[in-house]
């Protein structure tokens, strides 16, 4: 109890067990902290509290005090006497107060849950066999855990609209809706696009879009994620796969330098959907709709999946030899990518070092206006990784004008582009004709057309590694699906190239292996073990780069510092 003063925590009792939480913590979270589940539908940790589902009803009591003297009341055993409230209280709207007691498993609480579950199901269509939410449905889960287990309902169920298109990506089945209002609150409070509401009254209340509006904002699919039932479904995912068949791989969205934490859901090498993964320091529980579609590039028709020499398919070994010959046979420039992982950038830097001292190295900047929420102005996920690994010491320009000038000046014979489309980055076709291009990338484009050597790379979903986001937060992503047959990972190809250039044994192309070097060589990364990086990332000291004019503006959980903000 002595620590009470120091850590500013207060004691509450949940089913008799003492828990110490910050004052005001709601009782759902307080119970969660000791592993006690208080079932709930409408409560969401990142939205306002409305207390409408009534699933989280618990018994609540406070230590009694004598009205006359103000002295604590004691029971026969000399313990503080708890005065239990006659009515149950909603845990979601009950903030922890010193000495508060709650019961989460009493007869009254169990009867409340049975009642609410029954009420939620009487007008629910019970169409689980054809419902996309089956398997990840809180109605199913709580009905099993807390429901009565049998029906007492013989009346006709309410009829409501089915298959309402709320927007381009979200479908609504009003009969399944339990009116928790999470989606309404999300649109209002997070997406700042207040387009959803209820019409009609009582049990006939119906979720709908305001007349003339649609749910089309770039965060609309979060409503599908937070819908506790199958009312809101994604037009992209619905009817395609049962969630229990899907493997979940933690990943990082490469849409921008925010570094949104995600889960990639896949089965047998095919990705079916991407959903946000909670990280209270980065993206809370949200992600953009645009970030969710990035997996579609994996199987797109323009995917590069074979090694080529002069446009003809070639053996990876022969391609490697040709690369060595090209890189050794003249003056070289290297273009790296802000979409490569920390490990790949470091390996590329080692490769550059093996080529000589004066090799010009570039990165391609991607600056586009962000949305102030989860898409930043910097559309590269890992520019800071290139800074930390020493691949770059300045921020990248949007176009490779300097490289273009060098080509015009006849200073460059060979360009190794590892992951960037040189044409898109501003080099003219004429300029590319003057040099030999080694192009490594995931997709065919103008640049691959004009390259001597094509090296297929893997998408972020097919490799593992780490990115450093705008907060200098180092975050891991892991491989969700295998890459195309016969294609080395980005890291493996670089390791082989580096070994071939230096004559050393190739490094094992695993992030954990690379980090043994990284954490030794780079002061800011000292002591970090790849396998021990927390699921929510680790913040690195980026003060060394504070003078650089980073382009990010304000976004969720990120304020640009005065030194880095660019007006």
């Amino acid at each position, binding site marked *: 109890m002595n620590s009470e003063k120091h850590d500013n925590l207060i004691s509450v009792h949940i089913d008799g067990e003492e828990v110490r939480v910050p004052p005001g913590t709601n009782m759902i979270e307080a119970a969660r902290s000791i592993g006690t589940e208080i079932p709930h539908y409408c409560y969401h940790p990142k939205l306002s509290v409305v207390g409408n589902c009534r699933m989280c009803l618990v018994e609540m009591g406070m230590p009694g005090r004598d009205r006359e003297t103000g002295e604590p009341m004691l029971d026969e055993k000399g313990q503080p006497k708890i005065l239990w409230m006659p009515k149950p209280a909603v845990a979601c709207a009950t903030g922890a107060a010193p000495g508060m007691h709650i019961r989460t498993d009493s007869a009254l609480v169990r009867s409340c849950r049975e009642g609410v579950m029954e009420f939620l199901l009487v007008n629910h269509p019970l169409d689980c066999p054809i419902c996309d939410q089956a398997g990840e449905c809180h109605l199913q889960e709580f009905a099993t855990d807390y429901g009565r287990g*049998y029906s007492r309902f013989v009346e006709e169920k309410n009829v409501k609209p089915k298959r309402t298109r709320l927007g381009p990506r979200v479908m609504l089945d009003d009969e399944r809706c339990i009116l928790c209002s999470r989606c309404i609150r999300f649109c209002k409070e997070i997406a700042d696009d207040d387009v959803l509401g209820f019409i009609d009254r009582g049990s006939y*209340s119906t979720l709908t879009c305001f007349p003339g509006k649609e749910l089309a904002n770039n965060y609309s699919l979060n409503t599908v994620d937070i819908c506790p039932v199958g009312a809101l479904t994604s037009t992209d995912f619905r009817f395609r796969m049962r969630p229990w068949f899907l493997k979940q791989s933690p990943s990082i969205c490469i849409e921008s330098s925010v570094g949104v934490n995600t889960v990639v859901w896949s089965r047998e090498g095919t990705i079916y959907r991407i959903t946000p993964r909670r990280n209270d320091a980065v993206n809370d529980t949200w992600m953009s709709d645009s970030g969710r579609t990035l997996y579609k590039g994996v199987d797109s028709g323009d995917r590069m999946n074979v090694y080529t020499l002069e446009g003809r398919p070639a053996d990876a070994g022969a391609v490697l030899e040709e690369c060595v010959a090209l890189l050794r046979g003249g003056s070289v420039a290297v273009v790296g990518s802000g979409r490569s992982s920390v490990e790949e950038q470091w390996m590329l830097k080692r490769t550059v070092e093996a080529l000589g001292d004066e090799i010009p190295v570039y990165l391609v900047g991607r600056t586009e206006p962000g949305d102030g929420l989860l898409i930043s102005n910097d559309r590269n996920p890992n520019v800071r990784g290139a800074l930390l690994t020493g691949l770059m010491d300045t921020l990248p320009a949007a176009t490779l004008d300097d490289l273009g000038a060098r080509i015009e000046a006849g200073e460059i014979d060979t360009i190794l582009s590892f992951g960037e489309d040189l044409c898109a980055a501003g080099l003219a076709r004429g300029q590319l004709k003057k040099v030999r291009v080694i192009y490594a990338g995931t997709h065919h484009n103008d640049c691959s057309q004009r390259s001597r050597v094509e090296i297929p790379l893997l998408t972020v979903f097919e490799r593992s590694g780490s990115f450093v986001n705008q907060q200098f937060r180092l975050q891991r992503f892991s491989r969700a699906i295998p890459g195309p047959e016969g294609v080395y990972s980005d890291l493996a190809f670089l390791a082989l190239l580096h070994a071939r250039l230096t004559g050393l044994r190739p490094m094992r192309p695993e992030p954990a292996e690379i980090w043994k070097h990284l954490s030794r060589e780079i002061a800011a990364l000292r002591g970090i073990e790849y396998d021990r990086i927390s699921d929510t990332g680790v913040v690195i000291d980026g003060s060394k780069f504070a003078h650089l004019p980073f382009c990010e503006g304000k976004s969720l959980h990120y304020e640009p510092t005065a030194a880095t903000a660019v007006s």
Partner: protein
Amino acid sequence: MAISEQRVILKHVDEPGYDPGIECYVRHGGYETLRKAVGMQPEEICRGVEVSEVRGRGGAGFPAGMKWKFLDRKSGKPIYLICNADESEPGTFKDRQIMHKDPHQLIEGMMVSAFAIQAALAFIYIREEMPQAARILEAAIDEARARGFVGEDILGSGYSCEIVVHRGAAAYICGEETGLIESLEGKRAYPRIKPPYFPAALGLYQCPTIVNNVETLCHVKHVVAIGGEAFARTGSPGNTGTRIWCVSGHVQRPGYYEFECGALTLGEMIHDVCGGVHPGRSLKAVIPGGSSAKILRADERFTGKLKDGTEFDWGLNDIPLDFDSLMACGSMSGSGGIIVMDDRVDMVEALANINAFYSHESCGQCTPCREGSLWMKKITKRMAEGGARTEDTDLLLSIGDQIAGRTICAFGEACAWPTQSFVSKFRDEFLAKASEDSGKRKGLRLV
């Protein structure tokens, strides 16, 4: 035995020649109390209201003085006064009389109250179904403003307060004070969760707000007129002042009657004041406080202890008409709507009617009331139409039990109490439906 009314609020109402204009009101001594009030200290008025022990006439019977005491005066935010004129409880028609026939009494009561709590602005939230009353009130406010009773610098006191009449959009839930506040803010009338949204601290626009019923605000005028102590001596201890009772149903003289609290019994009200049930009929049951109050059987015995410890053993006719006695009998005086039923009434049909009302009026915000009220309606409707099952009786009780005490606002109780009381007190009738209708049941299956 003839019992004469003790009219205070309705003193002049229905007098020949009495009209709702300001001339008539002033001629009858109107606005003198406001003149007295603005010469007093606001705290003095609040204290007077507190010692008068006047209780809210809207339904819950909460002491008005205590409600005012909860006002958060330290926040620095403006304080609002709202008159709850959303009189929608079935069986209740008292506020309507005041607004139609003596609107200035309400305005005076409101201005006295507004001055007492130092309100920045006052509202009358009136239900949509009373368009005429809204027009009367607006005209009356204009008249009062022209004479300096409302608006800028009231009676030269330096205190200013406007009254805004706001019409609802036909929803019973707007009578719930936080639902009313949401509606007044332009939102769906979803009642707020309490805690933390007690209006006295976080009310209209998150500012401290007092919501009082029409009749309550009128009583404030009389409290100030005669003084809190004198008011406290009227009625019975803890049940001070007069009440307007609205008697409807199977009596010979239905209507509104004003008496001091506890001055007569339910039996005297029904049999003497209202002339009893129609000839050849017998009293079957009474709902004493608006349709949400628990029903009382004519042949019931009520025993127990009152707050002050005195034991009682009453038949229906013996129950004194006040707040505490009806509560002691397991029901409530509620909004004062006494609904009398004679032996013609089919209890299942009566309940089906009440359930239809509450399922229609449930706002739909929280689960138990939203789903439970409609389910109870579906069951009672089916039972009344000849599809009763034996198990429906206990099922109804169980549904009621799953609602009451588990909702955001008191609507949960309002919709559950009729079912709980009808079914438990007339259990045989509900079961009999099942046996006589068992042959007509068809096609019912669990879903």
